[in-house]
């Protein structure tokens, strides 16, 4: 969680320093929930994280360098500059890169789970996250329904951080609470306080376990508050002070830190040391990646097909004339 938070902070500062092209999206406030998903999954499972799942990615095993390289546009990153920021992943390793259309990744995880079933691979789970905004899309509906019909081992985590960009819950859904949708789909619901790491670990562990054991799709709804803008370009002025000071608005990192200290699992110096180590790791990664070159437009093959022999040349042969 801490590593993810430090990474986020660094990306934000690089963004403000004009070093990052395009948008920066942070998971500030969502670390406890996200890391619990990543930790509950195993190698061999499938994970399609969403925008604020930096912590979950790290827990699942995504290297820090992947994040830094994708944000800084290094040609050595997993997306090779062809996509950026949170649109990153390693599909062959079970980490699916998102596309921007919310809800779209759920059915893709379903398909992967179907494939594993065809192969008679047992005991695996597919997890994906959306925000409460994502639950409004048709894609979400179709995919959850599909997973339920096929009784797939899907864990669908909904992080209700109270705002979809600037849209509050009251303009996003009208049901009493999101978990109630589970009945409509015929799946199991779980509810959790997203600010409490201990609860998150427990709930996600349970949900993933049930899916793995054949319990069908599990809908986990977590309540928390988004502690940053929708993106770093957004100052989130629409989030009221009242919300920020409520229980919902607690910083899960602080909550976890206090718990650590209370339980004597670490002392203040130890916590400082954790942070220092995280900062060092991130700084080293950034320093390394800042030396790396971006993709060379003149060396790109500019071919979107795997079947090279079927691709067409539309431009005149001079590469300098057309990027």
């Amino acid at each position, binding site marked *: 969680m801490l590593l993810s938070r430090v990474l986020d902070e660094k990306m934000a500062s690089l963004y403000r320093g004009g070093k990052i092209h395009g948008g920066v999206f942070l998971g500030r406030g969502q670390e406890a929930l996200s890391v619990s998903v990543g930790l509950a999954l195993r190698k061999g499972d499938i994970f399609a994280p969403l925008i604020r799942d930096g912590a979950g990615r790290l827990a699942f095993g995504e290297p820090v360098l992947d994040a830094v390289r994708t944000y800084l546009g290094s040609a050595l990153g*997993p*997306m*090779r500059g*062809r*996509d950026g920021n949170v*649109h990153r*992943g*390693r*599909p*062959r390793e079970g980490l*699916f*890169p998102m*596309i*921007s*259309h919310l809800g*779209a*990744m*759920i*059915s*893709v*995880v*379903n*398909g*992967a*789970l*179907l*494939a*594993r079933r*065809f*192969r008679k691979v047992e005991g695996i789970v597919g997890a994906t996250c959306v925000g409460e905004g994502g639950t409004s899309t*048709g*894609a979400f509906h*179709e*995919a959850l*329904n*599909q997973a339920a*019909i096929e009784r797939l081992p899907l864990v669908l985590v909904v992080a209700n951080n109270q705002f979809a960009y600037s849209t509050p819950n009251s303009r996003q859904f009208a049901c009493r609470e999101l978990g109630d949708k589970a009945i409509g789909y015929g799946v199991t619901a779980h509810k959790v306080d997203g600010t409490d790491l201990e609860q998150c670990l427990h709930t996600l562990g349970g949900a993933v376990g049930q899916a793995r054991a054949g319990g069908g799709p599990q809908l986990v709804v977590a309540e928390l508050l988004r502690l940053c803008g929708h993106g770093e370009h957004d100052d989130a002025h629409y989030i009221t002070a009242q919300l920020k000071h409520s229980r919902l608005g607690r910083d899960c990192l602080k909550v976890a830190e206090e718990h650590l200290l209370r339980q004597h699992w670490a002392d203040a110096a130890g916590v400082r040391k954790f942070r220092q180590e995280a900062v060092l790791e991130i700084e080293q990664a950034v320093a390394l990646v800042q030396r790396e070159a971006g993709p060379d437009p003149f060396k790109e093959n500019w071919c*979107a*097909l*795997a*079947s090279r*022999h*079927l*691709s*067409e040349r539309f431009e005149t042969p001079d590469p300098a004339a057309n990027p």
Partner: protein
Amino acid sequence: MSLTYLEAIREAQAKALADDPRVFIYGQDVGDFGGAFKATKNLAAEFPGRVLDAPISEDAIIGAAIGAAIEGFRPIVEMQFADFSTPGFNQIINHAATLFWRTNVPCPITVRLPSGGTSGSGPFHSQSMEAIYAHYPGLIVMTPATVEDAYSMLLEAVAIDDPVIFCEHKYLYYHLKAECLPTEAMPVGKARIARAGRDLTIVAYSAMLHEALAAAEEMAGEGTEIEVVDLRTIKPLDTDTVVASVARTGRLLCVGEAWPWGGVTAEVIARVATEGFDLLDAPPQRLNAKDTPIPYHPDLWSVHRPTARSIVAAARNLLRM
């Protein structure tokens, strides 16, 4: 033994299922029912567990196919009508088409689109969407016009590592028959000279190929020899064959069942104008459907899209220029 275009598609799917354990079929009513057009008749029984019924969720259907493809499978997705692929459009163009370019992991899905109009089918059961999909990089778009091509090109589509939009024509399903299945085929991406000629080139694809051939037959009686090119695949489009034909005849008429704006006919003419300008002895012409939604009433429908009749008129007009 003779088989229809539809049966050829069924045979191809059977062969794909039999030859490659990674192939499965997913779509609405494809299982025991055998598909709305019976394109998958008996396949669920022959290949248990590999022909799955989907809910009415085109987005989720395509999405699931993509997920399975990432895991190494080669799904064939049947959209009930091309017109209904639009709810799944996002997954096709933003996910399937971009996956390889973004991640280097290919997406070998085949999306079958029953396309084109039949009398009385109306605005939402008649569309030809090849140009819309062809516009997006990362997709292959096929438009087989013959029974043989329906068979061999579908097999090829399954074998290709990229997402293929397979536009099969509903009118041809039952109206086109062949004696037997082919044992070999032209490579995908190559157009075919369906009829050799001298005075004018008609470039067509899918059902319009047959209208063009009928028009050519009629005009042969007047001493005009029309060359007809069957594009077979829209993307990639075999510009070389088209240009070579225009080199022979000097006159080009491009015919398509879809709408004019930005359609296949526009693309063909753009290519010939750019690469074969000096071959044109007259301005290139095109014939498309009228720029309105496809009408339901047979009388309206009969003039809405090109027919042998209107093709003859257009060809005559071009010859007079």
